[in-house]
């Protein structure tokens, strides 16, 4: 029987990975829930306020983006724009080449994953090392992150120990503390040898031009402290009006992402280092990237651009918990990815049009979303679009028969009467693949068809009124 691509991934996922993903996402969801409950009488109201802040910012993006540019330029940063990922990659490469830099370190950034910056830099002879522990392991394995916040949620300590051994970082040792210490030592050398640090940004405030970077490891801080040049790649949708809005957004981000009141390091950067400061970049470049975000803004799914990449919707999603991240075949997995990935795919929409269907529309993603994105509604809009664009849908049973039955009362009544015959037919041996696969794990109850009609008629003394 034809399957949705996501089902194929689930079928091939090792049970150990599935258990690890399930356990870790469930724990984080529980922590998030407890902390929000302890700290707020009405955390729902706060989510809705955060959603309104982000929606307002998006619907005034022309104003706020220009204001952010102005604020940054006034403080000595250089602002660039890139319509496509290719343009952004080229801009980064040109900045590095003109400064004669061949080694860079990177802190975790979804947008650089989106445009495959590391591959591009490697092709141009520039070594780019991921400094976030999880991202570094993804990089040396030639793998892809499977979670927005926890990139190696799909790997065991044994996998990591083997990768470290292969990279010459010492003998096999799967103790998480030893793994972390080895990464610390290795990364020190990389930080000090790098000419530039590349980061993303969690937010940009229009009024002061501050780029907000949050990490738990401190790697973004270390990427920048010894570097001469800071290059930040930022999606144009990251802008918020003012520093004051961050009070709402930062309080929700840490709690939603990892169950922390605040992430360990929250860095606010709006220019090159201060003149009295010996360490830190002398040059700061901010590249604002479109990469089809303006298309999303023009679509009926613009709310997805509110996303602050906390990963709470992945953690709570029953589909993500079973499927893990690679099943989504794109940079953004889980419910947010099921909306964003097809939208950012452009003319490859059809290849990812199955993702919006991989949902029971249970609504949990919307309930946990710190910016109240109506993800189930957006999934439905994308299903409609796939239907309108005649995207084939393998694994969907033909419904024409039921449509005929359900729209003709006479045929329906006849079916209710004669349906009782099904109790005596060997249904599992009929040549209908959908029925066969359905019956493999289930048994049908005894036929009760037509009972509703007779019950309805017998109400109120049998006159049906």
């Amino acid at each position, binding site marked *: 029987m034809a399957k949705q691509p996501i089902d194929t991934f689930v079928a091939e996922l090792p049970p150990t990975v599935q258990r690890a993903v399930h356990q870790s996402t469930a724990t984080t969801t529980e922590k998030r829930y407890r902390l929000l409950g302890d700290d707020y009488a009405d955390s729902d109201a706060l989510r809705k*306020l955060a959603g309104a802040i982000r929606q307002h910012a998006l619907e005034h993006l022309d104003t706020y983006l220009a204001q952010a540019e102005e604020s940054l330029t006034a*403080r000595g940063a250089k602002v660039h724009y890139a319509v496509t990922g290719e343009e952004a990659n080229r801009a980064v490469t040109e900045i590095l080449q003109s400064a004669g830099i061949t080694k860079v370190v990177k802190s975790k950034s979804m947008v650089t994953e989106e445009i495959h910056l590391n591959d591009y830099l490697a092709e141009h002879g520039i070594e780019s090392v991921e400094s976030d522990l999880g991202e570094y392991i993804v990089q040396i394995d030639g793998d892809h992150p499977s979670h927005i916040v*926890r990139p190696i949620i799909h790997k065991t300590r044994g996998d990591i120990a083997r990768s470290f051994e292969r990279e010459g970082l010492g003998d096999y040792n799967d103790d998480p503390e030893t793994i972390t210490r080895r990464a610390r030592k290795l990364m020190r050398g990389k930080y000090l040898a790098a000419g530039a640090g590349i980061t993303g940004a969690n937010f940009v405030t229009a009024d002061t031009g501050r780029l907000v970077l949050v990490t*738990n490891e401190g790697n973004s*801080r270390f990427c920048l402290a010894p570097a001469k040049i800071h290059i930040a790649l930022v999606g144009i949708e990251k802008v918020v009006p003012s520093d004051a809005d961050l009070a709402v957004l930062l309080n929700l981000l840490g709690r939603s992402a990892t169950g922390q009141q605040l992430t360990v*390091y929250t860095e606010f950067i709006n220019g090159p280092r201060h003149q009295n400061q010996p360490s830190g970049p002398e040059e700061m470049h901010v590249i*604002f990237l479109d990469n089809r975000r*303006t298309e999303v803004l023009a679509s009926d799914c613009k709310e997805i651009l509110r996303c602050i990449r906390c990963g709470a919707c992945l953690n709570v999603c029953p589909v993500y918990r079973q499927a893990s991240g690679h099943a989504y075949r794109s940079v953004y997995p889980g419910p947010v990815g099921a909306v964003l990935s097809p939208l950012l795919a452009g003319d490859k929409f059809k290849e990812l049009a199955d993702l919006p269907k991989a949902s029971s529309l249970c609504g949990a993603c919307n309930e946990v979303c710190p910016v109240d994105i109506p993800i189930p509604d957006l999934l439905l809009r994308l299903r409609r679009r796939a239907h309108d664009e005649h995207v084939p849908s393998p694994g969907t049973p033909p419904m024409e028969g039921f449509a005929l039955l359900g729209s003709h009362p006479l045929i329906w009544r006849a079916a209710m009467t004669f349906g009782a015959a099904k109790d005596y037919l060997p249904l599992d041996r009929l040549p209908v693949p959908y029925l066969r696969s359905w019956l493999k794990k289930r048994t049908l109850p005894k036929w009760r068809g037509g009972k509703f009609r007779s019950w309805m008629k017998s109400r109120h003394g049998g006159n049906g009124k």
Partner: protein
Amino acid sequence: MSAREQIYAKIKTALDPLPEREPRPVVPRGVADAQWLRDEADDVALFVKRASAVGTKCFTSAGDCLSWLFEQQVGKVYVPDALADLTAKFDGIVQVVRQYSRGQVDEIDAALTPAAGAIAESGTIILTDQSTPDRLAALAPWTHIAVIRKESVHRSIADALAAMPDDPNIIWITGPSKTADVEGILIEGVHGPGVQGCLLV
């Protein structure tokens, strides 16, 4: 057309058809404060409680700080001139280094640097480019102790955001550097300090 012009034109095309645009929501100061904050009377005491809860070691006197450093048998301790008076008794008990340079990244075991402020609500230390003698000194050593003036403690995260200093680099530190990337197991001291401390003066 430049990339900038193209992007602004596309934003205009996307937003122009909207019958109305989402108005700017009112964000009352303190709307995101934790609800228990109003029951707390003393900001400094709250800071110590919250900082300790996230694993930051709090000292309330230079003497306590010195005793602890001595007990830990730390090697070289970097103390900038700005903190010379405060740490007058350190010399001779621990090995004090007064200058910091990039070449010493792996040599210095502990560093004291002045903080720009703190946040009681979250137990957060605030550093800026202007308060920090060297970003690397406050980051690379295994132990970092930020010296916080009690009067610089903000009550809430919102208060700290309302009083952001004019500095190109502000960093909030809420506990030691940590990761849970390997099987969700918490390990401290990934790239930054494994021991984050503060000294309140």
